[in-house]
């Protein structure tokens, strides 16, 4: 059976997950330099050991109006060869799950979340939303 590991993280009241293969590292909030005139969802640029990495504000991406109550954590992911920082509220545990256990996105989940989530998983801790990384990053570039 196809067992995979997923990195989980919290965004406001949502619990999200990503296959660990996409995750490069997790760091505490770094200083971010804003990019004037960039999209709202782009928080700015950060210096990751000499590499310049764009930081995406996932709260804004999910259209959550309230700003981060505390310094967000940075989840550094690799998409198409590029490292990007996702700003989230907190980092959760790494869990193992069967691919088959994932269910389609329920209708109760409206946009934009429904477009950013691939599938969902019932866990003891609640409903885990599997993030569609391409969609999350892609759209931010256009909006």
């Amino acid at each position, binding site marked *: 059976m196809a067992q995979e590991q997923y990195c989980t993280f919290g965004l406001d009241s949502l619990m999200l997950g990503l296959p660990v293969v996409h995750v490069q590292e997790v760091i505490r909030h770094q200083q971010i330099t804003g990019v004037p005139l960039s999209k709202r969802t782009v928080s700015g640029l*950060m210096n990751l050991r000499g590499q*310049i990495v764009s930081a*995406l504000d996932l709260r804004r991406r999910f259209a959550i109006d309230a700003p981060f109550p505390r310094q967000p954590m940075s989840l550094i992911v690799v998409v198409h060869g590029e490292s990007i920082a996702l700003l989230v509220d907190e980092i959760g545990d790494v869990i193992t799950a069967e691919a088959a256990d994932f269910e389609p996105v329920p209708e109760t989940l409206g946009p934009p979340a429904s477009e950013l989530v691939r599938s969902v998983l019932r866990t003891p801790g609640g409903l885990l939303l599997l993030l569609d990384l391409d969609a999350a990053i892609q759209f931010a570039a256009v909006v």
Partner: protein
Amino acid sequence: MAEFSEEELSEFLVESGESLDRLDEELLALETDPESGESMASIFRTVHTIKGTCGFLGFSRLERVSHEGENLLAKLRDGEISMSRSIADALLELEDALRSMLAAIAATGSDGDDDFADLRSRLAQLASAEAGDEPQASRKLPPNAFVFAAEPVAEEGEEVQPPKEGEEEVLRGSRPSQRDSGGRQRPVAVDTLIRVDVSLLDRLMNLVGELVLARNQVLQLASIKEDSQLSATTQRLSLITSELQENVMKTRMQPIGNLLGKFPRIVRDLANTCGKRVHLEIEGRDTELDRTIVEAIRDPLTHLIRNAVDHGVEMPADRAAAGKPEEGRIGILAYHEGGYVNIEVSDDGAGIDPKAVAAKALSLGLVSSEDLASLSEREVLELLFVPGFSTATSVTSVSGRGVGMDVVKTNVEQIRGSIDIVSTKGQGTTFKLRIPLTLAIIPALVVESGGERFAIPQVSLLELVRLESSGIAESINFVDRTPVMRRRDQLLPLLDLGSLLGLGESWHSRGPEAINVVILRTESSAFGLVVDRVIDTQEIVVKPLGSQVSQLPHYSGATIMGDGCVALILDVNGIARYGGVGADAGADQPVPREAVDEFEGEAVLVVRAGDGERVALPLREIDRLETFPVAAIEVAESEPMVQYRGSIMRLFWLSRLVGAASTDSSAEEIQVVVPSSELAGCGIVIEEILDITHTGSLGDRIAVIGGRVTRIESLASLVGQPAGGW
């Protein structure tokens, strides 16, 4: 079959590959100039060497094909047959065949299955043909051709003796990079070159980049500690780093000629396929570029060239009908200018019709008709770069599937370059690529605006000017609320960086005591950028922006400052365009001759007085331009005036002063020219601002300015007249 080592084989492959690269150009040169003994000798040498070596290495198919080629070449060289189109075609096919066999050897170790029997028999046939009716004039052979005459021409199957050392010396000539090795080491004085893996050079480059960053940090820390020994050592570190950087960059520089050398063949083949006649002129082969740039522009240039042949140059009949020579000309020009490499690809073909482009863009839904109406001609041509566009009326297999130009632009922008089109319908098109020379490390001016730091590439910097309040009053004027600065007979539009980027209010709203103006040059003009603070100049390492931000035109990259924070690097052209200055206005029109002459002389504000009279007012006499609602006009002692900045300003209508007819009195606002301080308390009402330009001496009362008859008036003389009422 003789035994040979891996190394000998790979050397053979590499050198033969290089020889074949040259062969391309040489064959084409020979085709256009069959008398060229030098090309002939070189070509013969190449084929002969390949034949000899592959015989030695046991590649019999390769040997047989090159043998036939060599025979044909020998006949050509000796004048027994003369160059013709079919011979040239066959020789080029020979080159392709050799190339493919070498590729097969590289991949599989054997020279492939293809016998090339067809090609061989054709070569043999051409070699045995008679010379034709005209008796061949005896051709002059260059001195080194005699060396070949002395060498035995090998019969099939015979092993060729590698040239002896003495002969090798003669063969070399003046190009040390040519190595006619038969696969063995040759102890020749010319071996001062070594081969280095490109990835090693890339690593060196990266390391130097990191060293520069670390050096910057050390410099910053050292400047805090006041330690003379530390300062001295840091200085040395800095010097050494700069020199190291310079030299590492040199290792990666290649003349662009290597890349451009492929194009004559491409043009020839393509022109034949299309049934057109085209010749290619290349200028600036020696222009050196960093290797990565060469790689990055290979595809874009190829596409542009193919486009020029396929879509640019017309069919011979059409060209003749248009009074042009039947043979079209495509030119590639490469040169350095101000830290950039410029590459211009031009053709004298049909040009691009902006109307056709506009129509196509509209029909493809790439632009709305409202947007279209507001585009300048240059901007319309730039629609070509939008993904999904193709003006080819028929999609050819050659180019024009609508995936080309946008990719060209993206590729060029990825190396932080820019591309522009200039085209005249019926005459031709030129694409200009402009690419920064130093990819990674550049000197920059660090400034601050709106609380953020930005780096401006020094290569775009013309001047730094600091204006105190008196200087501001003197040099800066407002045209339609846009500040314009006078600098050495030029008028520069001013942009405020902070407000442009939405970081704060512009300087003229804040009314500071002094301002810092960074005078920058764009592709076509110059402008002034007002910043809050100038910090210093630094060498910075340019890092690319991620996909999320790279499409913003305002920034060309980012860098890490000495304190570890990220700072954005401004794209000067992008900022200029965003701010609406310089880039477009009249850039696609040739500067009219009169305007050029007018650049010496006085700056004037040209206004409309009354219904249609044009009046030029010397700019130096003008302080500001203001607008007042008609309702603000008050009358005292039969004289109209307004309250202005806490005092009273008497109004004079220019139309009255110059005796111009004025029939329109419906305006709700008036535009007033406020003279500079000597004429305090007076304001001149004008109908409309027409232009700001230059004119010859102001001694004349009437001059032609901007192509129209214009009166020249001095404010002082105007206002000295009895007051005009309404």
